[in-house]
């Protein structure tokens, strides 16, 4: 046997070695080849990986969270090995045996006393509600609190919750999001709506962490990713590792590696694809009809908005019926073809720097478009709208992280009166809430936009939002 064997022959030889049936000479030849050829080493690693994965299946099958079974298994291994070791007892010191027994007892004692909680609250901001599996509701979650399964709702624009599983896996959710957490062995998260960022420790391959949304299922072995979802679709953006996304409607799946994203909607006509963030675009124009978030802004057509404005002017005595044609004539004519506007809706939030009642209009950004919108240093938001009285408005965005940072929220504030047309360089947006928010959203992927005010008399409405790569 020589080093001139073909790949197929090397593969056969590697397999014989893995099965323990290669001859002494064959193993010697294989070792020599492995020492000198990196391609054979890669081939060996790939073949061995299949062998090892199948072999360690029993190790991975037991969920890390299922502590008692896991401990029994470990003790069983220890005992089996102890029997093997009896044949070569002289190699083990008394100290080692004592340590092994001490370890077994410690493991059993510690884990048998562990409670059934599956997650720990690491950080809480703003208004957050936890409904446990038993139906008990907790509205004053605190860091350090341990929880069993249940549903977490971050109920306002300034809300944030960061949770940590026993194995160090962290998930965070912000804004208006609802996620149900279950972790009896296999971790399962049901993201009904909103945004979720996860930093997942390596999971048993037979029991990957599952993230379920109304339109997609994600299978996660160990990775970092962000997902935003609602009833119509889910957009996944992977920062590290690999996530398998399955479209619920037709079962089509795609593997999404780091630096890529995918969108799963109920529409099965489009192929489910993983797209590189390098294919990102840097411009966006909001479609107020399709993109607004339910409960955070009411879309009204231009005609209806104008009629409401005229009605208010008439009611307030600022306008007479005779003046309507002269004051609003051109606008009425144009309104039939004009875009509508998004009227901010009132929303209760936890008492904080913005009070406990805000009026907010929110948009999903390019939810159903496959390409990511990435913010650059020169990105400019143009925001047009109107307020009835002088008001301070707060304009913000939610952005997915990069490999360096998780999802975050960014905000800027302006005082406006009447119709306004603001041009906001992205540098003006400062970190507001969120894990990994590092001051600037440059380089991050835009997923939501919002504008709110605490002034109850503002009658804030938004007529256009665009993002351009730079000023014209």
């Amino acid at each position, binding site marked *: 046997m020589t080093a001139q064997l073909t790949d197929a022959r090397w593969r056969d030889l590697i397999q014989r070695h893995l099965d323990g049936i290669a001859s002494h000479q064959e193993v010697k030849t294989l070792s020599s080849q492995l020492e000198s050829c990196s391609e054979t080493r890669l081939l060996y*690693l790939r073949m061995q990986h299949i062998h090892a994965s199948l*072999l360690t299946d029993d190790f991975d099958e037991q969920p890390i969270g299922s502590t008692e079974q896991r401990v029994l298994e470990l003790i069983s291994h220890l005992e089996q090995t102890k029997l093997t*070791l009896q044949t070569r007892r002289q190699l083990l010191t008394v100290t080692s045996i004592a340590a092994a027994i001490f370890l077994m007892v410690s493991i059993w004692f510690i884990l048998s006393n562990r409670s059934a909680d599956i997650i720990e609250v690491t950080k809480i901001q703003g208004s957050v509600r936890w409904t446990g599996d038993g139906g008990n509701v907790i509205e004053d979650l605190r860091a350090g609190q341990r929880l069993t399964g249940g549903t977490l709702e971050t109920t306002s624009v300034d809300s944030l919750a960061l949770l940590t599983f026993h194995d160090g896996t962290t998930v965070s959710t912000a804004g208006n999001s609802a996620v149900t957490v279950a972790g009896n062995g296999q971790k399962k998260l049901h993201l009904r709506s909103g945004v979720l960022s996860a930093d997942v420790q390596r999971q048993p391959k037979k029991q990957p962490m599952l993230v379920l949304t109304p339109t997609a299922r994600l299978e996660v072995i160990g990775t970092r990713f962000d997902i935003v979802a609602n009833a119509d679709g889910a957009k996944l953006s992977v920062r590290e590792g690999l996530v398998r996304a399955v479209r619920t409607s037709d079962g089509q799946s795609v593997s999404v590696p780091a630096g890529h994203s995918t969108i799963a909607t109920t529409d099965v006509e489009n192929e489910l694809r993983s797209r590189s963030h390098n294919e990102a675009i840097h411009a966006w124009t909001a479609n107020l009809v399709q993109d607004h978030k339910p409960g955070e802004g009411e879309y009204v057509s231009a005609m209806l908005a104008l009629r409401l404005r005229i009605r208010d002017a008439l009611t307030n005595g600022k306008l007479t019926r005779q003046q309507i044609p002269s004051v609003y004539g051109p606008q009425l004519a144009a309104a039939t073809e004009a875009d509508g506007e998004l009227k901010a809706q009132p929303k209760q939030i936890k008492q904080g720097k913005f009070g406990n009642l805000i009026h907010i209009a929110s948009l999903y950004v390019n939810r159903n478009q496959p390409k990511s919108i990435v913010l650059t240093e020169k990105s400019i938001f143009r925001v047009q709208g109107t307020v009835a009285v002088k008001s301070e408005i707060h304009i913000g965005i939610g952005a997915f992280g990069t490999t360096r940072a998780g999802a975050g929220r960014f905000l800027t504030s302006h005082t406006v009166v009447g119709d306004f047309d603001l041009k906001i360089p992205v540098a003006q947006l400062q970190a507001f809430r969120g894990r990994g928010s590092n001051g600037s959203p440059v380089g991050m992927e835009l997923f939501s936009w919002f504008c709110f005010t605490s002034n109850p008399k503002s009658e804030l409405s938004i007529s256009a939002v665009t993002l351009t790569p730079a000023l014209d």
Partner: protein
Amino acid sequence: MEAERHEEFTRLLIQHEPELLRCILVAVPNRTDARDIMQECSVSLWSKFSGYDSDRNFVPWALGFVRIEIRRFLRKSTHRTQLTERAASLLLEEQRTFAADLDARQLHLQTCIDQLSERQKQVVDGYYRMETSVDELAQRTGQTVDAIYKSLQRIRHALHDCVDSRMRTAK
């Protein structure tokens, strides 16, 4: 304080044992041998745990002990022919280099296993999950021992090609 260290060690060991075992299997593919090494490592890790800095990643620290135990095993192993220490060492190094590639392959592997025929799944279940010996599998199925080995090799070959193909498609 001592109890906390026990709990920390237990948690880390349970969490990372599969990863450490897979590492051992790179150099020592026989499952019984690999588990023996894993056990020796567990004892070593516990005895040295007082020197472990909790701020550091556990796996790289533990892998140092794994390598020592593998080397010790390869030197003394007489009942089975093993790879040379140098070949094993290079494989362990490159396993880290190709970790991302292997992780990606892992994700496709389950899909490929699902695509195996029922007969192939029975062989995999028998040999890998039930840990039935090849001799016994041969007796049960009325095949020769050589045929069972060939069967296992064909299955792994098919899985390798399937994962390759899915990796290419994913790109």
